[in-house]
């Protein structure tokens, strides 16, 4: 049996599945890169940011990391580019542009 989500994929056999399709680890969704979904991308303009942090709780994808009371750049692995943070920022510190891939 594979017990770690990183080892569980669409190629493993029924014998390797966790019993009762349970998962024994926290936050295994982090393995999924929903950043691929983005069409538009937020651009963090640190110079304009006043660190009010209003953008952070509005992010549905937990993709604005906070460290020592300050927001960092986006977690682009998981940010889906919804643009909510762009709208809620009172200081125009986030741009929203077409993503070049």
């Amino acid at each position, binding site marked *: 049996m594979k017990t770690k*989500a990183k080892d*569980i994929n669409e190629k493993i056999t029924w014998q390797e599945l*966790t019993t009762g*399709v349970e*998962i024994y*680890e*926290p*936050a*295994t*969704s*982090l*393995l*999924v*890169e*929903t950043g691929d*979904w*983005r069409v538009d991308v937020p651009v963090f303009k640190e110079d304009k940011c006043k660190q009010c*942090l*209003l953008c*952070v*709780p*509005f*992010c*549905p*994808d*937990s*993709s604005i990391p*906070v460290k020592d*009371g300050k927001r960092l750049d986006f*977690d682009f*692995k*998981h*940010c*889906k*580019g*919804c*643009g*909510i943070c*762009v*709208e*809620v920022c009172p200081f125009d510190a986030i741009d*929203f542009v077409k993503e070049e891939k």
Partner: protein
Amino acid sequence: MAYNLKKELEKPERLAGGHRLCAGCGAGIAVRGVLRALEPEDKAVITNATGCLEVSTFIYPHTAYYDSYIHTAFANAAATCSGVEAAYNVLKKKGKVKEDFKFITFGGDGGTYDIGLQSLSGAMERGHDMVYVCYDNEAYMNTGIQRSSSTPRFADATTSPAGKVIPGKQQNKKNLTEIIAAHNVPYAAQTTFIGNFKDLHEKAHKAIYTHGPCFLNVLAPCPRGWRYETPEIAEICRLAVETCVWPLYEIVEGVWKLSYEPKKKLPVEEFLKKQGRFAHMFKKGNDWMIDEAQEYVDKQWDKLLAKCE
């Protein structure tokens, strides 16, 4: 202790990215906001009714939760949580579980106002120490925007379409918070995503840390179902509150308290006009719909004010 967003955001995250909710989904914001109210030293078990949140946050083998999580079915999230809580009580008594756990259930309006209402009522009546959180997006979004008893009147949903003869949903929205309050639970409240999340945070904290069955009704807009511009969720929530379509209040041990009173109540059309689901109300000759919607909101608001006096 006064609310401090910066402090709250230093707590470890309890909903991970990588879940598969739509971009800009209100449910994800609601869950993050509620779980942030947990004290970091407390563990939690999260129960979830079938719905958007469930099918998106635990797709095998990927759970978006840092805490233990259980989903069983659509109608029974509150009953499932009751079982978990009952197990906790007995295992704690027997010394088999040492840590403190909190029990939080999430359900959409379909799983809460409708199919899950019986099990929710049962759990509230029995008095389990749990919080039931409804993320109310006013329709069955998971199955494709069908009307629920939470869908407001006139809304164009896929089973209450705005047609040539019938202009959208015919019935008004059920007042679930009031129904739950009638169970004489120690704490029930309505909230949404406003400003720096003080309102949501404080209510979630009270709900989690008040002993007994507590209920939180969170208006959680759905860009797809409501047809507004996805980035505008904060504005939609603000308008819901400023027009008194979604009043913020709480019922603490039977005492009704208004959390916020708009200085100047905005006309309901400010809220409606931003959303495609109400677009037909703004067509020529349909003014009466807006009038009636306004009349309804006014009446509900007055009733609420009377209760909160």
